[in-house]
């Protein structure tokens, strides 16, 4: 008897197979990234009278004069150029490290010449645009492969997503990028030059590192937002939520501030609430706003109303999610770029203890700093004087840059996508306190259907042990919950639902009947 061949094709053949297209997309993405990194070596540096003049407005005329001896010099290495620039600037004994950094950045950027300067648009297309297209080609076909539904297959076998070698390398790359961005931007002027045409087009200004970063950040949220649209195409909560974070990033964090700058107005991200926006009450910002007419006053009033009225009221009605996973920029990146890493958050009780100590310490730090800023502003510097400035410096360094940036994003592939939001963000701490004590939000548990499988806990980016509550039939009300909705989505038994409802009985052991 001869074996009968099975005619029925397998799943691989039944559904469309876009492997080739997806691999090409990945190839284009990597090529774009390679060009981006390669651009770092695509300039040489010629200091001319014109290049010095271009830095006026960023550096004082007197200091530009210090560079006169370098006019006509040509450097093939940025390190040699920076060394010469620094040596000359040091002739002004009064220059501090911050000013030195700004000066080095603009002087070097304006001195750059060569392949990159000659082909900026082309290289922008070949790097950032190519990577974007490649990313989309990799992501989009997945919507035609297989059926809609939660597909977390192979996540814990994947080197990138399960803290394997690629994950660790990726983390290292992100950390290095942030270190350069915050503290040594003059080493990456070539990256910033790539963003010049876009910056000139939108803002009518040359790109600085923050424009470059904002552009990259927004593009990342859009591309990885498309990935969310594909992955969660069966879940309308996630579609709407992802559309929201893209909208707020593109409109509020990127376009509006850029257009304000174009119009020579004070720039503001209208959704960035104090104390996440820790520079709002700094004297330079208050002075800028107060000297900018009606718009400035409006910004000042809005910033205060946002922090004191909008944040608590919205959190009362919807929980912290209205901000953290619908509006916030940090949350926006975490919910898009960070989604593949959500399972890496630590779920232990120990981590929860550390989290509470850390996040509330940062909140205290932020409140103390802001109090000093305001007192100093009102008293015209007579009360705390220079201390305010120093506290600002510490906060900016340790919290604003090191924690929110380097650790916040660089640690995505190492400790999950919400390290900053969970352990550091002072605004999240305030939202969390409201959510815990005065809010209509809760995650409801559906009776006895829980099978303790642990998908909810595993995929909680905030490291909440959701299962602990679900298996007891208890509502989940935790200060840290950002309402991403993924626990409810991954639950195979329909046990969890994010809900707003009457406050009364929110904490009942047995679930609410809403």
């Amino acid at each position, binding site marked *: 008897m001869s*074996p*009968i061949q*099975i005619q029925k094709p397998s*799943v691989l053949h039944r559904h469309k197979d876009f492997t080739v297209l997806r691999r090409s997309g990945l190839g284009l993405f990597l090529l774009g990234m390679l060009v981006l990194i390669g651009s770092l070596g695509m300039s040489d540096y010629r200091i001319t009278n014109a290049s010095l003049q271009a830095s006026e407005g960023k550096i004082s005329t007197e200091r530009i004069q210090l560079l006169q001896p370098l006019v006509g010099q040509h450097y093939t290495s940025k390190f040699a150029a920076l060394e010469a620039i620094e040596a000359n600037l040091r002739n002004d004994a009064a220059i501090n490290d911050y000013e030195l950094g700004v000066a080095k950045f603009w002087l070097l950027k304006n001195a750059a010449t060569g392949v990159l300067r000659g082909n900026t648009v082309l290289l922008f297309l070949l790097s950032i645009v190519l990577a974007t297209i490649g990313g989309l080609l990799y992501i989009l076909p997945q919507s035609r492969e297989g059926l809609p539904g939660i597909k977390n297959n192979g996540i*814990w076998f994947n080197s990138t997503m399960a803290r394997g070698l690629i994950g660790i390398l990726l983390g290292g790359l992100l950390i290095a990028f942030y270190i350069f961005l915050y503290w040594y931007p003059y080493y990456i002027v070539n990256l910033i030059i790539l963003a010049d045409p876009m910056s000139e087009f939108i803002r009518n200004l040359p790109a600085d590192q923050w424009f470059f970063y904002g552009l990259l950040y927004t593009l990342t949220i859009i591309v990885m937002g498309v990935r969310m649209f594909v992955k969660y195409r069966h879940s309308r*909560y996630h579609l709407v939520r992802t559309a929201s974070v893209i909208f707020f990033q593109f409109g509020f964090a990127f376009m509006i501030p850029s257009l304000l700058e174009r119009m020579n107005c004070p720039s503001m991200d209208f959704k960035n609430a104090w104390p996440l926006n820790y520079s709002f009450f700094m004297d330079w910002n208050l002075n800028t706003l107060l000297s900018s007419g009606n718009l400035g006053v409006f910004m000042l009033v809005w910033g205060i109303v946002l922090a004191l009225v909008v944040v608590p009221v919205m959190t009362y009605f919807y929980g912290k999610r209205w901000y953290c996973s619908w509006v916030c920029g940090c949350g926006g990146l975490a919910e898009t770029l960070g989604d593949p890493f959500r399972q890496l958050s630590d779920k232990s009780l120990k981590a929860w203890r550390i989290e509470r100590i850390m996040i509330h310490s940062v909140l205290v730090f932020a409140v103390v700093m802001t109090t000093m800023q305001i007192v100093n502003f009102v008293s015209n510097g007579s009360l705390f004087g220079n201390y305010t400035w120093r506290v600002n410096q510490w906060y900016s360094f340790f919290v604003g840059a090191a924690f929110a940036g380097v650790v916040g994003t660089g640690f995505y592939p190492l400790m999950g996508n919400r390290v900053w939001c969970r352990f550091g963000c002072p605004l999240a701490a305030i939202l969390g306190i409201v959510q815990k004590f005065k809010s209509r939000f809760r995650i409801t548990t*559906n009776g*006895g259907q829980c099978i303790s499988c642990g998908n909810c806990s595993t995929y909680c980016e905030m490291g909440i042990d959701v299962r602990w509550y679900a298996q007891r039939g208890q509502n989940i009300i935790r200060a840290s919950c950002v309402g991403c909705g993924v626990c409810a989505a991954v639950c195979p*038994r*329909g046990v969890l639902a994010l809900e707003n409802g009457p406050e009364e009985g929110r904490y009942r052991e047995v679930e609410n009947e809403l």
Partner: protein
Amino acid sequence: MSKHLVIIGNGIAGVTTARHVRNRDSEMKVTIISKESGHFFSRPALMYIFMGHMRYQDTKPYEDWFWAKNRIDLINATVQKIDADHKSLLLEDGKTVRYDTLVVATGSKSNTFGWPGQDLPGVQGLYSLQDVELLEANAKNAGRAVIVGGGLIGIELAEMLLSRNIAITILIREDAYWNNILPSDEAELVGRHIEEHGIDLRRATNLKEILAGEDGRVRAVMTEDGEEIPCQIVGLTPGVHPNIDLVQNSGIETNHGVLVNEYLETNLPDVYAAGDCVEIKAAMEGERSRFEQLWYTGKMHGEVLAKTITGERTKYERGIWYNSAKFLDIEYQTYGFVSHQPRPGETSLYWEHPEGRHCARIVYKTDSHEVVGFSFFGIRYRHRVCERWLREKRTVEYVLENLGEGNFDPEFFKQYESEIVSKFNLQNPGANLKLKRRKGLFRRLFA
């Protein structure tokens, strides 16, 4: 000296007993013995380990320090013999453990029906952690798997193998998937979904024998129709039966399972049983004894038993039936009783979405219109609301008008309640029901 409670088996029934005993009695010495795993894990989550959704440690509902902190001793060993006369257990390493109270919670074993070749390498069931490890080995270089038996474990095994791109054939005895439990509309809906995933679902097909290749491993299966299906894995998933190997010849009374009364007491004093392994004797003449092999019944057994063991003798009452499962991408919930075949005196309202991945059934008494059961596919419903409707013996009209109250889908999801109500109106000329309660964002906002 405090009494010593020993529990054999660290599944949901044994562990729930231990936890609740500890809650109620801080003195009693509590020991759990299991060979399968060092710590309690969620058995229904085993599939997700194989699929890469979770690691083994993620399936453990309690962190490892939990047991020592709550003074629940764990012994990772096989019990070889129960010596009920001397209240002692003999472990595999020759040690003995004395008990004052014993709970047998040994779970179940996969059914096999004496098929030729069922012991070949490459043939396996799916129940334990060890089965998943075995599947990992068997899945290497496998191109096709044949799964025999189309119940809940069969579909889980199919989903697992699908995640590794292994082609799958499922053989089911019935004419439609799980048709001995699901009414045919639902059985066909699930069957179509299974095929939508590229799975080869063979209805009304029985296994005859499993054939070995030259290497001694499984090479193919032969159906009763004489068809030979080449494969490298055979999954045998025609259900489970109580694991009573240890209990036999110990003096503890057994039938198919460990025989217990409604208090989960065995025939021997101070010896109880809970979970999958029990067979609950009929309370009344003419009734049949019961097997309850669900996660939540195991949990309920444990909760009730803990009361009895700590001095508050409590009867086990399951309450209104419910269950849930997931068939690939389609979630399933049921409350009350939905029979797979229409029963006399009952009418059922069945609504199905044209796309074929959502449906709902409400079964009610033809004369009084009292609702007796619900089942939902692809829509989540609230356990407590459905249970309340059943307990209060609400009519189908009342339930339909208030259907939105029971919806448990996430926000922004499409709601089908008005379509379900329309279906009823269409089927019942003269009926003009209106959905009074929608689950709405704005209602929530200002409620």
